[in-house]
Every structure is written in C-alpha cells, then in structure tokens.
C-alpha cells in the first residue's frame, strides 16, 4: 500500500513540475501586450516601458522562466498586473469560495446521479430507465450559462424563492470568522445556524445550476457500470443461490461498479475547479474562476499562470485521493495484484 502511495506521489510531483513548465510557455503565447493593456489610454511609450520593466516583461525569456519556476516553488506566484496584489494571496483568498461551490455542486450531482443511475440499471428498459436517460441527455446538452440564467430569472426574479446573484452572503451580513473558508461550515462551527442557512440560500442557485449539469455524466457512468456489474457471472451466481435483491444491487452490483464511478466523480470535481468560470461570473461568485476571467481580459499573465497552477495542483491532489480510494475500494490494487478486466 505504502509503495503504491509513494509511486502515486512521485508521479504527482512530476506532473506538477510539468504543469509549471508548460503553463509558463502557454501563457506567453497569448496574443496582446499586457503592458499596453495595463498602461491605459493616458499612457505614453515611457510609461509602457516602465511597466514592462517593473513586471519584468523585458527580461529574456529564460530569465523570466527561471524567476517563474523559482517563484512558484517558493510560494511566490508574482504580482498581478491588474490588481498589483500578490497572486498567491489573491488566489488563496478566493479559493475557499470556489471549493465550497464545487463541493456542494458535486455533492448534489452525486445525490442525483448515483441513485438515479442505480435505479435506471436495476429497472433497465422501464419508464424509470427511460426517464433517467432523458434526464442524462438533457443535463449533458444543457449549457451552464443558459440554465443559470433561467434559474435566476424564474427562481430569483419571478418567484423570489432564492436571493439574487450578488455574492456569498446578503449585503451587510458579516462573513463568519475563517476556519475552513466554507461559510456554511464556519458558521455551523461557530454555532450561528442562521448564518449557515443564509450561506446555503446564496449557494443554492449556483449549486443547482452546476449540480444539475454535472449529475448527467455521473448518472450515465453509474448506470453503465451497474449494468456491467449486474450482468457479470458472480451476480448471476448470487441470484442463482438466492441472495436477496437488495444485497445483489448494493454489495455485488454497486460495489463492483464503484471504480469507474469514483473516476467519474473525480473528473467532475476536477472540471468544477477549473471550469466554473461562467457560473462564478453569472452569480457574482467571488472565486478563482471569476479572478481568472478578469485576468484573461487584460492579459494578466501572472494571475493566469497562478490560476492554472493552483487548479492543476488541486487536480493532481484529487487524483492522488482517487488513486488511494481505488486501493481502498479494491484490495487487489493495494496488494499490487493485476486487475483483470
């Protein structure tokens, strides 16, 4: 087990190094001169040159690369040309908002996708299965921004069931003292359940938007894996010897379907970390996605690099967690045996 974990961690470190290197060069291929964008209309050539000098844009590319790599590995992601703030600090300030949104969205997606997938597989060919597949198609083909707009319009603007898309809490409400950065958790830990409820109310619409769309791939994966598992020889044998239907469904079926499902959830969570820019923009959610959106508009290279590296590192960590959970779910993996498919 430890050897397995060590190997995964070594691969992860190599992946992070690769991300740091690749991101540096990709970001520099972006069109446009950040110094000119930063200088604004009242600038002149002198002012633009000053900005280039200040942010090191004039340095040879290898010098910039060296500064970038040494900076990243010492926690210095550089200075944002847009805000003049420390990129690492700014990302860390915004990360909890994105993580909280991602966590609850994936949770909702799992709560919808897993039971529906199991049910669809268990009742294959029935109207339940048909409805689940329609839901999956609908979720897969629905554009996030469109669903978000619809939900805002109907659930906030028309029906007033949820608060408007303005932030993580109502205007004037003090944020809970930071423990985890998740407002819902921090408020609960402080015993302020009113604040926790308010945080959930503001989370609701973006979480429903993302959860609905993300439930589709989970549902599809659970259904397909469950069908494979339920068609397997051991399930047939279990049925033949009279094992109960519930036991077959959850012990023989779902447990054996877990590996691909965990993979799907991991992919969905990873997508959420980097891909919720649109939802954060739409709901004025103060996370790293919105930060990246603003950075893209003005070629804020350091901020963009920082965003991609943070998301990349989180993705790598997530994969380590998934790999570990594989080992937990399937003893053959932690014992180093080959998995026959």
């Amino acid at each position, binding site marked *: 087990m430890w050897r397995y974990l060590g190997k995964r961690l070594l691969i992860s470190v190599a992946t992070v190094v690769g991300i740091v290197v690749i991101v540096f060069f990709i970001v520099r291929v972006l069109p446009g001169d950040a110094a000119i964008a930063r200088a604004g209309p009242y600038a002149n050539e002198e002012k633009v040159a000053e900005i280039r000098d200040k942010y090191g844009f004039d340095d040879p590319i290898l010098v910039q690369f060296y500064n970038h790599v040494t900076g990243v590995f010492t926690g210095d992601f550089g200075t944002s040309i847009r805000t*003049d703030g420390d990129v690492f600090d700014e990302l860390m300030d915004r990360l909890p908002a994105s993580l909280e949104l991602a966590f609850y969205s994936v949770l909702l997606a799992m709560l919808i996708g897993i039971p529906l997938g199991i049910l669809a597989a268990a009742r294959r060919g029935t109207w339940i299965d048909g409805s689940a597949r329609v839901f999956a198609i609908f979720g897969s083909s629905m554009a996030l921004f469109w669903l978000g707009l619809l939900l805002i319009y109907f659930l906030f603007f028309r029906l007033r069931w949820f608060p408007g898309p303005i932030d993580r809490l109502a205007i004037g409400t003090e944020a809970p003292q930071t423990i985890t950065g998740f407002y819902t958790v921090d408020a609960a830990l402080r015993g302020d359940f009113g604040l926790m409820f308010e945080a959930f109310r503001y989370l609701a619409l973006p979480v429903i938007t993302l959860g609905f769309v993300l439930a589709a791939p989970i549902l599809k994966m659970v259904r397909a894996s469950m069908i494979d598992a339920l068609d397997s020889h051991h399930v047939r044998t279990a049925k033949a010897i009279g094992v109960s239907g519930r036991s077959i469904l959850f012990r023989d079926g779902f447990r054996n379907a877990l590996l691909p499902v965990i993979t799907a959830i991991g992919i969905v969570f990873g997508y959420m970390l980097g891909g919720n820019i649109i939802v954060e923009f739409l709901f004025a959610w103060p996370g790293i996605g919105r930060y990246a959106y603003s950075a893209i508009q003005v070629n804020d290279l350091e901020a963009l690099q920082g965003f991609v590296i943070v998301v990349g590192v989180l993705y790598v960590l997530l994969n380590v967690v998934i790999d570990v959970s594989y080992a937990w779910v399937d003893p053959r993996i932690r014992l180093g045996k080959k998995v026959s498919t």
Partner: protein
Amino acid sequence: MTKRRAWSGGRVAALLAALALIAAACSSSDDTTTTTPPTTAAGGTEATTTTAGGGGDTTTTTAAAAPAEKPVIVAALSDTVTTVEPHTFRSTSAYAATHAVYEPLIVQELSEQEGGWLLGSRTSHVGAGAESAEIELTDTGMIATFTLRPEDTFDNGNPVTAEDYKYVFQRSIEGPGYIGVLLPFIGVSSADQLTVIDEYTFQIETSVQSPLFERFMTFQVFGALDQVLLADQATDEDPWSFEYLGDKSAGSGPYYITNYNPDTVIDLAPNPNYWDAESVANAGVVIRTVPDANQRAQLVQAGEIDVATGIPERLLPALEEDPNVKVLKIPTTGVQYMAMNINLIPNVDVRRAILKAVPYDALIDQVMFGYAAPAQGVVTSSMETFDPAVGSGYATDLDAAAQFLADSGETDVKLVLGVRESRLIDQEAAVLIQENLRQIGIDVEVQVLPDADWATKASAGELPLLIHDWFSWGEDPFYQMQFLTQCGSFVNYSGFCDEAYDELVDTGKFTIDQTTRDDVSSQAQQIFFDNAIWAPLWSATRTVVTGKCVTGLELGYSLVPSFRFTTKTDDC
C-alpha cells in the same frame, strides 16, 4: 491684472439645506437596511445641516421630520475595482469610491432634475475643501488662491491644511500615477507653482490661461491627501505611498473606506469628521461588483440593489416600462468612433467613401436602441465649440460613397475592422458597418480580438479600421482633440498627424476667449473632416438605473454616480 472670479460655498449651502429637508421629509422611519457599512446615522428628532459659506456658516435646522435611520445605498457599477489608489485607479467603481473619499477644493454646482437626481453644472462651481477662492488672470497665466476651512479634518481627525493640498498636486507631478498627464492642460508642471501662503491658504500659479482650470479643480484626484499619515507610510521605493492607498483611504471627503476587497466590494461609511457631515443623506454606500449586466438589471428591479450602471441599451426600453425602477438619461459628450488608419488606408477618397457609407442612423436605432445622439465629429454634437456645418457632413450617403470609391481608383478593397471582445455593441456596430461597406464594394473582415490584443494592435497601428470609445475628463473639445487626434498621442489610433491642425488645437487649449475657441475649433473640425480620419458613430446617452425610491443621486463631469445626497424615500 484682471480679477476673474471669486466665489464661496454659499450656493451649495442652500442646495444642501434643501436636500436635507427633502431627505428628512421623505425618508422612512422604519427603514432597516443592513448593517454594513457599520456606521448608522441616527437622526433622532432633530437634524442639523451646517454648511460653511463665504460670509459665514449657514445653519439649517429641521425639526421632528428627520428620519430615525438613514438607508445604506447599494450600487452595482459596471466594472471591477482593482485599486482605490486615487492617482492610478482604472475603473468607474473606483472612480465612484475615490470621489466619495477625496474632497477637491471646489465642486460642481448641483441642480435637481426631474426624478429627483442631481446634475452637476458644467459652468458653475462652488466651494468644497475651500470655503472660498479667487482666480486672477495674469499676462502669462492665472493665480488661484484658495482659502480652506479651518474646521476641516481627515477621517482620522488630522486637520486639513494647505500643505495637504500642495502634497496632492506635488504627488501628481512627481509621483508614478497617470494624473500628471492632466496638469499640462492647466499649465502646472512644477512644485514651484504651488505655494502655501499660510496654514489655510493655498495658491496655484499656472503658466497658461486654461479654460479647464476650474473644471480640473473639481476632480477628486486633486482632493486633499493626509500627508502626515502618508509620510509615515512612505518608503524609499514608494515615497508617495501608492501601495498604502491601494486599499485604504486617507481623505477628507464625506466618506471613508471601511472594507475593500478587489473584484468584489467597497464599503464606504460616512466620515464623522467631515466638515459637512450632516449633509450626508445616507448611512453609507456599498459598491458591489456584479459582472453580468443582466443580473445588475434584475437586482435593481427586484429592489436588492439601489443603483446600477452599465446596463446594455437593449434592456433599457423594458426597464423604462418597469414601475419599480427609474432610468436616468444624460446626454454625454463622449464619442464612439471608427478610426481609419491613414497609413494603412492612405487614399483619402477610400476613407471618404467609408465615412459616407457608415449607417449612422441605423447604428443609433439598432445598436444603441435610441440611447445615443449623432456624434458628428471629433468635437461631438453636444460639446462646446461644435460646428454643425462641419458635423452635418457625417451622414450616410451610399451614392456619394460609391462615387468616392470610384474616384479613388482603387478596386478590390479589403480591410480588417478590429473590435474588442468585451464590447458587444462594438461587435454589433461592426456587422452593420460591414454590410453597408459591402454594398459599395469594400470587403470588411470583422476581427473580434481579446482586449489586450486589440490594444496592442491598435497602438502598433496594425488595424486599418477599429472601433473605440472615449469620454474626456472635463468634457473639453481641445482636450479631446489632443488625446485622440494630435500627432504622437498614445491613443491616436488613426495615425493622423497634421501640423496646422495641431497648432489650432494648441491655440484652443490655452485661450479662455470663447470666440477664439469657437473659431479654431471649427477650423480644426473642418481639417479633420476633409481628411476623413474617423467615422464618428454616436455620442452615447449615459444611463443609470435606480430603484424607484432612490433620490439625490449626483452625476457630475464623469457621469459616474456620486452618493452624498442619495437616499431612499417611502412615499414614491
């Protein structure tokens, strides 16, 4: 030596008193708007508005009608705040915040408009940081002497003195901010021109007679900075404390910053030490960043916010029908234009053909939904010194356009029109322009470019056609002409350079004689038209959407909302 103008804060005192009365009479006693900013101004049973006038203080007392609690005003402006440093800020949200925090020597006189909002005069100014001022013309320039208010303090209690105003001008000249580029317009280039006569008397001697001097003195970028506080924050690398002011305030205006989070929020609380604190009609202002314009509109319709700007024109007709909101409309002197790069389109007849083929009226109707006026030139139609005889030439005439193209001798004309990714209306305008140019035989490729890429290509002169917009601080025609069209200017995207034109602009910049200004401006406009440098597309109407109960919103030179007199009534 001619004495030009001397005035005091008397007129503003009367207006403030009237507004205080209106606010007191209209405010709800049970208005329980939120808790941030923390300051809640309890009115009690008696409110006093004290404003200092030239001949002494004017005190107005309103009995019994004062509100129990003033509302907090929530605004969602159109862009993201990245810094609140007063000499380097780059957004309208930051403009609004710095305007609330830093008090200049004088301000625009306000007049109430239909709907209860306040418009700043372009010609009449009254005392703010200065209780009185005197401007004298000399043979070579102007001498302005400002008498400050002895009772005036910063939000931390430090007194505001003439040294603080000298500091801000010196910081503008010598510091790394961009405000220094404004000072040549008023003939100030050295700290030697700034004199502290005594603790409360400050003098500026300019090297030119600038028609913009008074207007510039109203800009918050020249508002008092607490130099005692900032001296403590200065370092060798940052002697003017730019870093410190990036997220904090050190002003003497009606508000101070209590909370600033880049990209998200600025909370402003009333400055309890403000010399006219009682005139502040609300308990604070929250400026929120709501990036999506549709959501800003819905939030104000739903009553969750009070003020929204940057609402797309296509949404405005529906909002005007909504009884829950008010749409304030203010014609501007700003210009939206399509620049033609004379180095890439050297044939003047081709440029004339383009100028005549642009569908000006259709753009205003279909892209701006009527919320614009014809721009008709680099000096726009609502701008001082505009010459309608020249401006009328900017009209669609496809036959004339085709004739110009034939006269040019050029065939198979293919051009790129660059527009910014973030500007949907530019993209829509480009499509209409493309269609009209196609009709006369010019093939246009519309390139939607990331903003930074667009700026780089525009600066490098790589775009034959591009759409850009501009709004001049102080709304002066010569200021506008200098930045957009004089030789060598950073944002002269057409590459136009004409010695005679530049001379006319320079003449107009530094004369206060209106006849001369009209004359040289007209000549410059004619040269500009003859060379067909731009197709001036429209002059936008600035719109601000507020809740139906919001009153007292101020709109001055910048047309960015200010909030000192803004409150909410319950009888609307």
